């Protein structure tokens, strides 16, 4: 029998970003900046979520010629259902994120430092 651990705060932050994106595809660096976590923490989470079937990933061609295709992610139906079952934990994570945004004067709109494509 597989044991499902309660997601960590970083995992909740990533899930929150993906949940807020809805049907939209998000890229790795955008998720890392919005969830405020390092790449070394983000990718193991993404790998695990994809292996559990809660996340789907696709390769998207870059609109800028010469740049390699990027990996984009979004929650699957199963992922969304799993997230909906969390209830309080997700709300608490959302509240924490809002508090952190207020503390640092972070804009509500997602910040992005990626090159314009």
């Amino acid at each position, binding site marked *: 029998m597989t044991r499902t651990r309660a997601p960590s705060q970083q995992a909740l932050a990533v899930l929150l970003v993906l949940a807020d994106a809805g049907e939209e595809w998000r*890229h*790795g*660096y955008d998720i*890392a900046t919005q969830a405020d976590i*390092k*790449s*070394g*923490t*983000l*990718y*193991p989470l*993404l*790998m695990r979520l994809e292996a559990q079937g809660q996340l789907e*990933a696709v390769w998207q061609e*870059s609109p800028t010629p010469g*740049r*390699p*295709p*990027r*990996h984009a992610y979004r929650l699957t139906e199963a992922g969304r259902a799993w997230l909906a079952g969390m209830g309080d934990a997700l709300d608490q994570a959302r509240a924490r994120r809002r508090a952190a945004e207020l503390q640092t004067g972070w804009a509500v709109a997602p910040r992005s*430092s*990626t*090159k314009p*494509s």
Partner: protein
Amino acid sequence: MSKPAQTALRLVLARWLMRACLALMPKAQAPWAQAMAAELDEICAAGAACSFAFGCLALALKLRLLSTWQSAAASAKRMAGAFAYRGLSGRLLKQMHTHMHEASVARLGAASACLAVLMGGVFMATEGAPKAWPWMNGVSLAFALASLALLPKQGLQTDQRLRERLCFLLGGLLLASCVLEGREGLNGRWLQLGPVSVQLVWLLVPSLLLLSNVPAGQAQASRHLGSGLGLLLAIASLWAQTEPIWLLLMGLLLLLRSARRSEPQAGHQAEPLLACLALLAAGWSSQHWQMPSSQAFVDQVLLQAWSHSPQPLLTGLMLAALLLLVLPGWRHRHAREHSLLWAGLLLMSLPGFLPTPLLGMGGSAILGYVLSLAAVSGPEPDQQAPSKAAHTPRHRREPHKAPWRRLKPR
């Protein structure tokens, strides 16, 4: 440094870190490494790019260590299973034989180096060497293994032009190092590179010698000017540094190499000449050479172990670890030159002409051994793929005919 220069440097560093990440990531997670590399191209802030790439590299290193550990544990489990259920039977020995046969030169050599350094470390720790020495050897080994993992081994094995250029470059470096102010220490000449002292001879000469070897299949591909010049520069440098032992080994190895070639091939005529030159230089420099004074835990380590330890177990284990260093050449025909060279160095270290490599204190020898594994030339074409006959049952193979019978008219 100006700000644009700093930014450019950081971006270059980020790219190098990501390249290392791509090389280190286990095969199963390779697409994820590509995804990370693609993200790096989209980050415009140099600091953020560096931080992103560093995180990815740390992750790749962690996953690589995990996968290595898992595969080693699985192998150990299989072997332990065989041991438990079938006893120490032929099956277990067969499995060990298969594992050794399938392992590449680099893996076998790296495993042998790990064992030798471990045994040396145990000896140093138990016999009262300075506490930092085993750790320093360990750090050198870790650095050497990481470098070996990052080196493009396949390119180094097969790309003759790259091998020649590198050989020439190493020869040039060796000669240039003679100009730098060296520190004449115990057993050789040391160079201070930043916080560490290195013996460039141990570091560069083994790789240079192995890089100068041209795989038989590529004999006609080029004129081997680069490798010949590299060897010439190395001989000049070793002569200038009064290293007769290295020159002797180089000369013998080149003589052996030229004798092993069944037919004289274009570009190989220089090898006997270079061998004679190396031997002449060895004779010349031996007149000015003095036997180095012995230092505990660096020179004659086996003799020291034998005289210190009342039980022969430790000495026996250390001798076995030392002999393991020639294992790659025993298992792989194309790595025989590597093993011959290191066997020569080990022999010369027994009477104390050279420091004991890997068992004794000395990071340069550890780096030299591990890095020279990457310089071993690729297997010859007939070794790369098993022949068709090997897969055909004996009774279905065509009977062998002597050449004159094959040419007989019907």
